[in-house]
C-alpha cells in the first residue's frame, strides 16, 4: 500500500494534455542591478502562472495565442507585456523599484514562493523590511528577526539559537547559497554569522517542506547572497556599536559578469586593546570576529551562467601574558568556510538545470603555549567537520499547471573531533587520531507541483542513503502539501512532512558554543526522524490577511545530553556514553494577522504550543517539558511610514514580544550522598560536597518568569543624487527596562541569584550607500 501511494506521488502528475503549445521563458531581474529576482510571479491570467525559481528563471507553456504577461514582485513596479505566442519565445522581464499604488508592503511574503505553502508554513520576508526591525545595538540580525514569527521561539534572550515548532536548534537546516552552514554563531550565539548587507533573499519553511530540502527535522532557512551589480558599481558602508561593514559590488564586464564583496568586523576588541596599549600593559586579551562574503557570476550566454560564492567567518578569543619570565599565549578560535561553484544551464525553454559543487567547513582550535627559558609546553586541541558535496537539480516546466523538480546530492563528510597535540621538553603526544571518520551521503528527490483548478499540490519523495563506514541507513521521506484557494480570498491547506537527520550536534546548552560539534549517526546513535502534520486556513480581506494553522509533530531518536559538560571544556571522545536517545512530540496552533498595505503595516501573531520529550533513562521514563516548551507566545511587529518622497524616507518601527518563560533545570531536592571511593582517607575528613547530593526529578522543572520586551526604532533615509543615500537608524531595545532573567546561580551563601543582562539599550547605526 505504501509503495502504491509513493508511486502515485511521483507518477500521477506526469499525465499531461497533448495540444500544440509554445513556451514563454526567461528571467526576472532588477532593472538597475541585473540581480535575478527569486519568487517573482509571472502570470497570464489569475489562474495560470508560475513563480521564478531560485535563479530568477521562469517558464510558461501555453497554447498559441495572444496573452498579457504580467510580472509582480514585492517592492517593484509590476510589468505587463503583450505577447503573441506562435513559437517558443524568450521574454526577460526587468522590474524597476517602486511602490505599487503608493502602498507599502511590510512583513508580507513576496508574491512568489511555493504556491502550495500557507503563509504560516512559509515565510519569504523582504530584506529591506527585515533591516528596519529594531535591533539590539543597531546590529541587524536575521536569526533574531525571525524569532518574531509565529512558531519560532528563541532560546536565551538575544541569542541566535531558535526552535521551530518544538524542535531543537540543531534541527534547523541553514543554507547560505545552498551550502549548509554548520555554526551560525558569533560571540557565543549573541550574533549570527549572516551579514545583512550581503543577503538578497531569505526563505523559511516550517512545515510542508518540499522534497528538494532534507537533512534536518524541523525547518529550512534558505539564504541567498546578492550576486553583484551587472550594470554599475554600488557600495554600502555601515557602522553600528558592534561592527563595521563594507559591501561593494560592480560589473566585471557590463551585463556579462559581476562581483560583490562584503566584509564585517566587530569593533568590540578595539577599545580594550587601545586601553591596554595606553596604560602600557604587557598583557593583552580580547575578542573579535569577522565575516567575508564574496560572490562572482558570469553570464556566459543566455543559457549558461556560472557563480562562484565564498563565505569565511571566524571568532577569536585571545590572551597573551608575560609574567615572572613565563610567556603564555592562549587563543580559542572557530569559524566556517563555505564555497560553492554553481552552473545554471537552461537546456531548453522548459528545462532548467542547476549543478553545484560545494565545500563547507567548520573548525575550532584551542591553543595554549607556555614558554620559559627552561621549558616549553604546548597544548593544541582542534575539531573540524568538512562537507564536500556535488548536487544537481532540474526544474522541468511541463505546463503552467505542472512543474517537475528532480535532483540529487552526493556528499562526503569528514569528522575530526577533538584532535589533541601536547608537546613539552620530553614528550610529544597526539591523541584521538583514531576518532577521525568519514560518512557518505547520497540523496535523490522528485517533486511535483500541480495546479488543478483551485487546488494546488506539491507531492514529492526524497530518499537518502547514509553510509557511516560501518553501517548504512536508508530513509524514504514522502512530502505532501495541498492548498485550496476559494474565490473569496479564503484558502485552506494541509501538509505532511517526513524528515530524517543523520548528523547530530553535541551540545548541552542552548547557547551556540564553539565547543558544539557535529557528529554523524553511528550504529548506536541512529538517525533522527520526524513526521509533521499541519492544517490551516487563511483569509485575505481588504488590506489584511488572517490565518490559523495547527500542527502535530512526532520525533524519533532525538538526542539529549546528560548535563554537566563544562563550558569551554573539550568534548568527550566517548560522546555516545553521554547522551540519551528518546522521542519527542510537539503540537500547537499558530494565529497570525497581517496588514500588508497602507502606511501602517505589520503582523500580530500568537502561538499556543507544547513540546515534550521522553527518554527511558530520564524522569523514570515519563514525558517531560522540553526546554523550548513555551506555552504562549504573542508577538507584534510593525512599521509606520511617517514620510516618503523622492529625497527622504522616515519610518517608525516597533516590535513587542510576550512569551511564557523559558524552561530551566534547577535542583530542587537534596538527599544524603555516599562519599566518593577513597575519601575516607582524606586528612581533613570527608568533604561536605561528597555527602550531599542536589538534583531534580524531571529536567526543565522550573519555568522562568514571563518574558517580554518592547523595542522601538526610527529610521531616516536621505536620498541624494546618483543613487547615494544616508540612513540613520535609532533604536531602543527593551524600552521599559524589563529585567528578563537570563540565568540563575547560587552564591557562596547558597542564595539563588537571578541575572538579567539586557536592560534598556539605546543605539544608533549609520549606513551610507553609494
Amino acid at each position, binding site marked *: 500500500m505504501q509503495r502504491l501511494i509513493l508511486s502515485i506521488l511521483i507518477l500521477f502528475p506526469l499525465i499531461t494534455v497533448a495540444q500544440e503549445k509554445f513556451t514563454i521563458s526567461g528571467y526576472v531581474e532588477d532593472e538597475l542591478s541585473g540581480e535575478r529576482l527569486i519568487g517573482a510571479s509571472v502570470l497570464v491570467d489569475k489562474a495560470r502562472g508560475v513563480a521564478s525559481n531560485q535563479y530568477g528563471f521562469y517558464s510558461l507553456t501555453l497554447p498559441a495565442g495572444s496573452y498579457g504577461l504580467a510580472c509582480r514582485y514585492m517592492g517593484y513596479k509590476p510589468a505587463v507585456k503583450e505577447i503573441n505566442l506562435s513559437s517558443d519565445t524568450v521574454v526577460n522581464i526587468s522590474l524597476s523599484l517602486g511602490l505599487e499604488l503608493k502602498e507599502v508592503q511590510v512583513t508580507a511574503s513576496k508574491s512568489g514562493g511555493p504556491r502550495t505553502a500557507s503563509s504560516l508554513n512559509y515565510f519569504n520576508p523582504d530584506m529591506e523590511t527585515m533591516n528596519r526591525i529594531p535591533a539590539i545595538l543597531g546590529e541587524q540580525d536575521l536569526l533574531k528577526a525571525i524569532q518574531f514569527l509565529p512558531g519560532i521561539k528563541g532560546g536565551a534572550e538575544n541569542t541566535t539559537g531558535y526552535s521551530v515548532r518544538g524542535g531543537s536548534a540543531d534541527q534547523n537546516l541553514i543554507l547560505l547559497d545552498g551550502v549548509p552552514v554548520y555554526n551560525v554563531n558569533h560571540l557565543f550565539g549573541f550574533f549570527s554569522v549572516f551579514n545583512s548587507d550581503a543577503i538578497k533573499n531569505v526563505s523559511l519553511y516550517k512545515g510542508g517542506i518540499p522534497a528538494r530540502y532534507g537533512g534536518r527535522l524541523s525547518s529550512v532557512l534558505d539564504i541567498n547572497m546578492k550576486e553583484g551589480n551587472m550594470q554599475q558599481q554600488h557600495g554600502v558602508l555601515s557602522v553600528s556599536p558592534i561592527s563595521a561593514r563594507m559591501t561593494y559590488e560592480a560589473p566585471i564586464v557590463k551585463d556579462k559578469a559581476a562581483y560583490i564583496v562584503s566584509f564585517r568586523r566587530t569593533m568590540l576588541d578595539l577599545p580594550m586593546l587601545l586601553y591596554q596599549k595606553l596604560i602600557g600593559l604587557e598583557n593583552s586579551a580580547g575578542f573579535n570576529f569577522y565575516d567575508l562574503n564574496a560572490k562572482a557570476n558570469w553570464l556566459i550566454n543566455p543559457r549558461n551562467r556560472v557563480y562562484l560564492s565564498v563565505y569565511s567567518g571566524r571568532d577569536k578569543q585571545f590572551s597573551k601574558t608575560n609574567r615572572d619570565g613565563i610567556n603564555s599565549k592562549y587563543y580559542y578560535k572557530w569559524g566556517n568556510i563555505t564555497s560553492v561553484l554553481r552552473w545554471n544551464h537552461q537546456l531548453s525553454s522548459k528545462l532548467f538545470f542547476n549543478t553545484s559543487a560545494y565545500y563547507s567547513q567548520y573548525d575550532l582550535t584551542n591553543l595554549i603555549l607556555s614558554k620559559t627559558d627552561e621549558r616549553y609546553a604546548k597544548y593544541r586541541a582542534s575539531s573540524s567537520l568538512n562537507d564536500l558535496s556535488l548536487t544537481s537539480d532540474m526544474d522541468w516546466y511541463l505546463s503552467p499547471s505542472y512543474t517537475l523538480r528532480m535532483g540529487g546530492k552526493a556528499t562526503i563528510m569528514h569528522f575530526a573531533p577533538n584532535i589533541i597535540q601536547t608537546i613539552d621538553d620530553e614528550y610529544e603526544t597526539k591523541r584521538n587520531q583514531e576518532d577521525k571518520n568519514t560518512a557518505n551521503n547520497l540523496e535523490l528527490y522528485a517533486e511535483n507541483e500541480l495546479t488543478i483548478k483551485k487546488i494546488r499540490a506539491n507531492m514529492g519523495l526524497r530518499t537518502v542513503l547514509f553510509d557511516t563506514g560501518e553501517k548504512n541507513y536508508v530513509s524514504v521521506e514522502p512530502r505532501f502539501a495541498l492548498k485550496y484557494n476559494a474565490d473569496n480570498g479564503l484558502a485552506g491547506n494541509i501538509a505532511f512532512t517526513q524528515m530524517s537527520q543523520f548528523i547530530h550536534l553535541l551540545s548541552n546548552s542552548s547557547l551556540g558554543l564553539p565547543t558544539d560539534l557535529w557528529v554523524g549517526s553511528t550504529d548506536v546513535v541512529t538517525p533522527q526522524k520526524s513526521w509533521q502534520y499541519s492544517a490551516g486556513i487563511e483569509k485575505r480581506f481588504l488590506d489584511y490577511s488572517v490565518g490559523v494553522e495547527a500542527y502535530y509533530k512526532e520525533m524519533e531518536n532525538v538526542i539529549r545530553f546528560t548535563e*554537566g559538560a563544562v563550558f569551554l571544556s573539550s568534548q568527550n571522545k566517548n560522546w555516545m556514553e553521554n547522551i540519551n536517545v528518546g522521542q519527542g512530540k510537539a503540537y500547537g496552533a499558530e494565529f497570525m494577522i497581517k496588514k500588508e498595505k497602507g502606511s501602517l503595516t505589520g503582523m500580530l501573531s500568537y502561538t499556543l504550543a507544547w513540546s515534550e520529550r521522553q527518554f527511558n533513562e530520564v524522569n523514570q521514563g515519563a514525558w517531560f517539558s522540553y526546554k523550548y516548551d513555551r506555552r504562549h507566545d504573542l508577538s507584534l511587529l510593525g512599521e509606520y511610514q511617517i514620510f516618503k518622497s523622492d529625497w527622504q524616507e522616515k519610518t517608525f518601527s516597533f516590535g513587542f514580544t510576550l512569551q511564557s518563560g523559558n524552561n530551566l533545570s534547577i535542583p530542587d531536592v537534596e538527599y544524603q550522598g555516599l562519599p566518593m571511593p577513597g575519601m575516607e*582517607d582524606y586528612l581533613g575528613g570527608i568533604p561536605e560536597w561528597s555527602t550531599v547530593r542536589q538534583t531534580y526529578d524531571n529536567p526543565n522543572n522550573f519555568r522562568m518568569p514571563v518574558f517580554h520586551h518592547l523595542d522601538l526604532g526610527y529610521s531616516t533615509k536621505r536620498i541624494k543624487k546618483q543613487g547615494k543615500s544616508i540612513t540613520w537608524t535609532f533604536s531602543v531595545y527593551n524600552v521599559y527596562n524589563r529585567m528578563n532573567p537570563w540565568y540563575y546561580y547560587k552564591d557562596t551563601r547558597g542564595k539563588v541569584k537571578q541575572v538579567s543582562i*539586557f536592560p534598556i539599550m539605546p543605539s544608533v547605526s549609520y549606513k551610507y550607500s553609494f
Partner: protein
Amino acid sequence: MKQKTLIYYLLVMTSFWQACEKEVDLETKHPQKLCLNCVLNPDSLVTAELTLSRDINNGYNFEPVNDATLILYTDEGDNDTLVSAGNGKYSLHYKPREGTTYSILVKHNTFEDLQATATVPNRAFVTWKTDTTYSYPQENKYFVRVDMTVHDNPDETNYYWMKTFETNAVFIDDFNRDIDTESKYGYVYYYYLRFSDVGYNGQTMDLTFTRLSGIKWYLWSCDPHYDKYLKSTLKARLNAEKDLPFREPVQIYSNIENGYGIFGAVTATRIKF
C-alpha cells in the same frame, strides 16, 4: 580561572551591558522520598543507609529512617533481611560475591517500595612495575614512576576509577580533564581517572603515572549504576567549582525506583607501590 575571566570580559565587552542581579526565592516544594545508599563490596559486609530527602537548602541533617524493611535478594533465589542498627543504618552479616546479581527491596508504611538491582563486578587484574624518579631523603619519601597494566575481563563491561591526576593514556574519559600548562602533559584530571573497557574489552590497558610511595592505592571496578552515580556526582562538583555563568545543573544518577540514592557494586584492587 583564566577561562572565567575571559568569559566575564566577553560579557562586558559584547554590548556594554550592565548585568542586573537580584536575589530571588524559587519555589522548590518537593515531596519527601526515601533515599537508599548501598554499595556492595566483596571485601565488606552489606551495609545500607536509609534517609529522607528534603527540599533544597532546608537543613543540615537528613532524617534517618529506622522503621523500614530492607530485603536483599540474590539471583539464585536467596534472600536476607537487613537488620536496623539505628540512625538509618542497616546491615547484614554477609559479604557479597563477585559476579552475583543482587536486588534490594525496601518496604515502608508511608512511602512507596524502593527497588534496585546491581551486579558485583569481578576484581580487576592489575600488574605494575615501578621506578624511583626522585626522592626526599629527609622525609623518607620518594616518588615512583608507575607503569601499570589493567588486564580487562572480557566477560563483563568494566568501569574503572582510580585516584591519579596526570597521565596520558588515550582511553581515559576526559569529562573531568582540564588544561594546565604547568602539568606534565598540559592537562590534569580532577579528583579521579575514569576509564572503561568500551572499545578495549578483554584487552590490556597501560597507564603511566607518578605517585608518592608508601601510600595504599586502589583501582576500583564499578558496576554501571555506581559508575554513573560517581560520574554525575563528580560532574556536579566540577560544575560548582567552575562557577561559570552558563553552567547547567547536573542530574545525579540514581537507579532507585521510587526514590533516590544508589544501589551499586564495586570491587577494589589494592596496589602497593
